[in-house]
């Protein structure tokens, strides 16, 4: 009897509590999924992107355009609101003999100078953190050493300035080291340069590099290409001649790449860049290198920036714009002056090289933004890895920051903005009304003839 009574109670309780319990369970389940544990809420809906936003990162094409070498102050030293050339700055011609030094102030330079800096140049320029050895370091330059203090402005490089003012200018982007072009170039392709730190040039027998970004892209089956100006000509050069050009394009000096047909097929001549865009065949990762119109100190900067602008505009006008990011940067600062003391590179534990210009162009790049985060080229590689979800084992990106912070993927993609085409008509091309000009000449000649005839007859009659 007692058992029956318990059962009745139990039955009564089940019939009324069960719906409540079910509801509670469902509610708790839903709550757990809507509110994740340890969520970080953004203070503002316009905050910078993080790697957690990877699912919303629409970037599918990344173009890295590498030139070399100009420093940040050389290109953007007078850019509004940037950490540019300090006022009243002057550098001694010889910091080791100040009493005999003249002092050189920064000035607007209208020409390029020939100079190829080496490791000693950077160390001398740095001068134990005094940052006053730039002129002295270039004292053997055929022209004036003081030209290292020159800077360009928006009249010289209007396209770069337009990109910088419209998109993101990174003012703490350092070259990876104070070592040679080769070392910095190896960083740029994700190769660990530690085994080659003492190399100044690619040896004639080539390089044996185990891992680069391109290998990771291959492993992850991500399309990539390297566009090189005049590549056809370079390909046909004798190895000894070719090697001399390759300090800035070390991928061509890696034996594995030269021996492997499949890897070699990723290297193309520069015009193919435009064809690939037109043919809707544009890879996910693209590196662009120049040989003739390189931005190195002895090439015309105006010409170089036009070529770069053409590449950028070609992408802007294509359907790839809405999911692309372009990084314009320099390999090394070329011996030009920069005032910012480089910090330590977390990867190499050595000093960074000096600042180089870096512009991030994308419909998602923050508008008119000067980015103060510390970056180097490995930050760009980190960006590639995160955007394309690459499981990478590159050591150069292990401790690298990510330029993702300069982008905002919460906004709709912006339309591209073009600088007005610089084609100026002089006032000579179109004249005002031209009627009457030839009459002036004709009438003047007729009057002249009449004077002569009159004078002639007058002379004759006198005789």
């Amino acid at each position, binding site marked *: 009897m007692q058992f029956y009574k318990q059962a009745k109670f139990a039955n009564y309780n089940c019939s009324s509590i069960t719906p409540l319990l079910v509801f509670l369970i469902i509610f708790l389940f839903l709550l757990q999924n809507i509110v994740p544990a340890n969520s970080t809420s953004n203070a503002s809906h316009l905050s910078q992107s993080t790697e957690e936003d990877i699912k919303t990162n629409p970037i599918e094409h990344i173009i890295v355009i590498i030139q070399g070498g100009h420093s940040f102050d050389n290109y953007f030293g007078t850019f509004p609101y940037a950490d540019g050339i300090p006022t009243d700055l002057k550098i001694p011609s010889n910091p080791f003999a100040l009493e005999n030094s003249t002092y050189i102030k920064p000035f607007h330079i209208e020409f390029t100078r020939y100079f190829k800096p080496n490791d000693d140049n950077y160390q001398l320029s740095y001068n134990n953190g005094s940052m006053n050895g730039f002129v002295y370091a270039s004292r053997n330059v055929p022209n004036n050493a003081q030209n290292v203090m020159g800077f360009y402005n928006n009249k010289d490089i209007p396209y770069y300035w337009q990109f910088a003012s419209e998109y993101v200018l990174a003012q703490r982007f350092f070259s990876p080291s104070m070592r040679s072009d080769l070392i910095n170039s190896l960083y740029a392709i994700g190769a660990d340069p530690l085994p080659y730190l003492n190399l100044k040039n690619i040896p004639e027998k080539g390089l044996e590099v185990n891992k680069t970004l391109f290998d990771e892209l291959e492993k992850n089956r991500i399309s990539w290409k390297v566009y090189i100006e005049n590549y056809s000509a370079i390909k046909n050069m004798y190895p000894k001649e070719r090697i001399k050009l390759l300090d800035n394009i070390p991928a061509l000096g890696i034996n594995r790449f030269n021996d492997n047909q499949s890897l070699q097929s990723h290297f193309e001549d520069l015009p193919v860049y*435009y064809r690939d865009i037109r043919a809707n065949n544009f890879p996910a990762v693209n590196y662009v290198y120049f040989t003739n119109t390189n931005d190195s100190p002895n090439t015309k900067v105006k010409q170089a920036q036009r070529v770069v602008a053409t590449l950028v505009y070609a992408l802007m006008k294509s359907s790839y714009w809405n999911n692309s990011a372009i990084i314009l940067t320099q390999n090394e600062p070329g011996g030009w002056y920069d005032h910012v003391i480089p910090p330590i590179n977390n990867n190499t534990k050595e000093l960074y090289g000096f600042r180089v210009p870096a512009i991030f162009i994308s419909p998602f790049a923050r508008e008119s933004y000067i980015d103060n985060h510390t970056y180097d080229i490995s930050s760009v590689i980190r960006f590639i890895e995160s955007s394309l979800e690459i499981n990478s084992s590159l050591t150069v990106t292990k401790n690298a920051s990510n330029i993702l912070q300069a982008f905002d993927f919460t906004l709709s993609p912006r339309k591209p903005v073009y600088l007005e085409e610089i084609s100026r008509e*002089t006032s000579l091309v179109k004249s*005002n009304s031209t009627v009457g000009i*030839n009459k*002036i000449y004709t009438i003047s000649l007729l009057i002249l003839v009449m004077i002569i005839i009159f004078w002639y007859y007058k002379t004759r009659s006198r005789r």
Partner: protein
Amino acid sequence: MNNDSLLLVFIIGLALFLRIWDIGWNGFNGDESIYSGQAASLLGNEEFTSNFAVFRAHPLLLQSLVSIAFTLFGIQDTTARIVPVIFGMLTVFVTYLVAKQLFNKKIGLICSLVLALMPFHIVFSRQVIVDVPLSFFVVLFLYFITRYRETGTSFYCYLTGVSCGLCFISKEVGIITLPIFFVYTFLTHSLKLNKIHNLFLGFVSAVFPYFFLILTRQDASNAFYQYAMFQLERYGHGLSFKYYSILINEAFGYVLFILCIASAFVIWIESRKPNSKSYRDQVLLLGLTLGAFFLFYQLLPSTGDRFMVTLIAPGIILGCSILVTNTVKHMRLYNFGYIIIVPLIIFSTNLFLSKVFPIEDLRISDGLGTPWKREASLWIKNNTPANAGILTDNMPFANIIRFYSHHDVYAVTLSPNPSYLQVDNPAFLFLNNNISIVVQDLDPLRESKSTRELVKYLQFSDPKLVYTAYRHTLEDGKEIAVPMIRVYKVN
């Protein structure tokens, strides 16, 4: 009419015939297009005013005269060339007068005949270039200065000034005639300060239209200033001795060049001998003119052989004057010299030597105009829309296309010349679909960096070959057609 006059008429007729015969066989070169385009703009023709600014580097004397020819006979290349042909013919006549005045009638006839037959002068006096009227007025200057030296009258001083002014408004380098006048009259003790004002009066009255326009029109004064700056900022080309030797041989020929030097030397030596007729002053005048113009041109950053046109007539007079020297007169077969000198000079020019020796007939001559460039330009005019954007590799060719087709034409090369539309980056023209036609010059003699640049730009789009202009030539007895111009449609 005596025999000499008849002979002179024959020579002038021959000069006219050689200069006007088949004058339309080739189209304009770049400079002819510009000057003729300016002449058409002077008439207010809208097809030309947008492409050819009236005020450019040089004064407008030639262009004004060409515009008169256009008014009478229509705007065509053959019509424009009538003006330089007339100047060329008149140069032959005035050369006779100068040589007759300086030496004697026989020398006058010889010199005019040589000039009438001189290949270099024939080629260039068929072109619409400012050097042709300049060469005429330089010879006119020589005539008047000779008459002034002889008579000392104000009238001839005034006429000398007028000829100096006309030299100047043909081409600015004509100003060099003024210092030539002063140096010559000073050295020959014929400088009369009380008559000098006539020289300046004549000069001013001749140059009046040029400076009147500069002072009264903004576009004229802008052009004057900009071109002055452009010319001052240009640098010289560092020409070599080899270049000069080719230049002089191309213009004068080997024999005339040697005769000029020999004549000047012999006359100078003979002038020091007592009781011998001195032609030193004549040689001085000719030598000064040749030397001053030649040196002045070397200071300018200009290359090319067309400026030698100015020196041909004085050079011929100097060279032929060897026949008046006692040294030659005392030679056996002296009279034979009058007959042989003409073929000797003519056949020693590159045009004839190139038939025998492996040298080019005109090695330096920059741009004689070609039939195929005109053909290509006319094809473009007749087969492309009026607003089609065209890109080619060099400015001279762009100007030719502009003249014949009336299209806007861009060129890959960037010249700092203030008259040219500056295109900083031709690649943008492709990206912005401003270019629909690309014209490629395949002439191997003209290949340059800009030709290779054009090929690079072709890769920006998928070009479709729509027209080819050919040069027809004989090779191993067979006629072959060599492609010289290709026209591509892009976008």
